[in-house]
């Protein structure tokens, strides 16, 4: 098949000129690169007790950690420092290796303390953490 030429005079250019399309596509590309957001949030996973399963009683095997609204941390009816949470969790998980941790935070307890406690419990080797709030 013979190619039809619009203006058959010049013999040099046979294909479509792609340069304008490339300009246009590159502009679009730059726009999308600039507006793109790459969010990669690191985080900690925490369970919430469902309405069916109430927070377990004290006689169950779970380790309870309380966080008061002033940021105090209570384990086993003792106020402890955040750095002592890990040691406490390690000791209690050695007694009951399959126990989980229940964190009872007061409504106005700071989230920073909560995350620190969750972090310490993770470091103590327990990943089954449940988070509940009290009045």
């Amino acid at each position: 098949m013979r190619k039809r030429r619009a203006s058959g005079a010049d013999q040099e250019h046979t294909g479509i000129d792609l340069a304008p399309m490339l300009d246009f596509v590159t502009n679009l590309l730059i726009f999308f690169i600039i507006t793109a957001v790459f969010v990669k949030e690191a985080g900690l996973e925490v369970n919430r007790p469902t309405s069916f399963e109430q927070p377990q009683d004290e006689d169950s095997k779970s380790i309870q950690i309380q966080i008061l609204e002033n940021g105090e941390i209570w384990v086993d009816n003792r106020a402890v420092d955040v750095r002592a949470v890990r040691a406490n969790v390690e000791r209690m998980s050695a007694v009951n290796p399959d126990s989980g941790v229940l964190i009872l935070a007061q409504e106005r307890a700071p989230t920073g303390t909560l995350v620190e406690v969750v972090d310490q419990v993770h470091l103590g080797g327990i990943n089954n953490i449940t988070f509940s709030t009290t009045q």
Partner: protein
Amino acid sequence: MQSRRHTPETEDTGIDLAPMLDFTTNLLIFFIITTSFIKEAGITVFKPTAQTAFGRDSGNLLIAIRENGDIWMDRRRVDIRDVRPQMERLHIERPDDTVVIIADKESDAGVVAEVMDEVRLAGIQIMSIAADPAG
């Protein structure tokens, strides 16, 4: 100046732009697709730090909680009662989405718990609390 030619043919004088156009279009499509997947919170808060924080690739619905209890999602401030319908809508659009709650260090744990409950009632089970990985 005369341009040096190795081949005797005189038809093609310019660079062939077609491969570059292919490449650029591929990049363009990549950026168009990735931009639409992430729902940003719209504000920056002071996140707590944690040593055990890990990045999750698919965490793409971000909910921010300020220290005064304001909840931000999709670049707008929303009421706690609006979290659930919005999450339900987004969950229907893409069921694989996971939620990252970005809570300020000074925000109340009670608000975080409420938001987690609303998100879970909307049908999204996988969520995490954002924390900066400690150095």
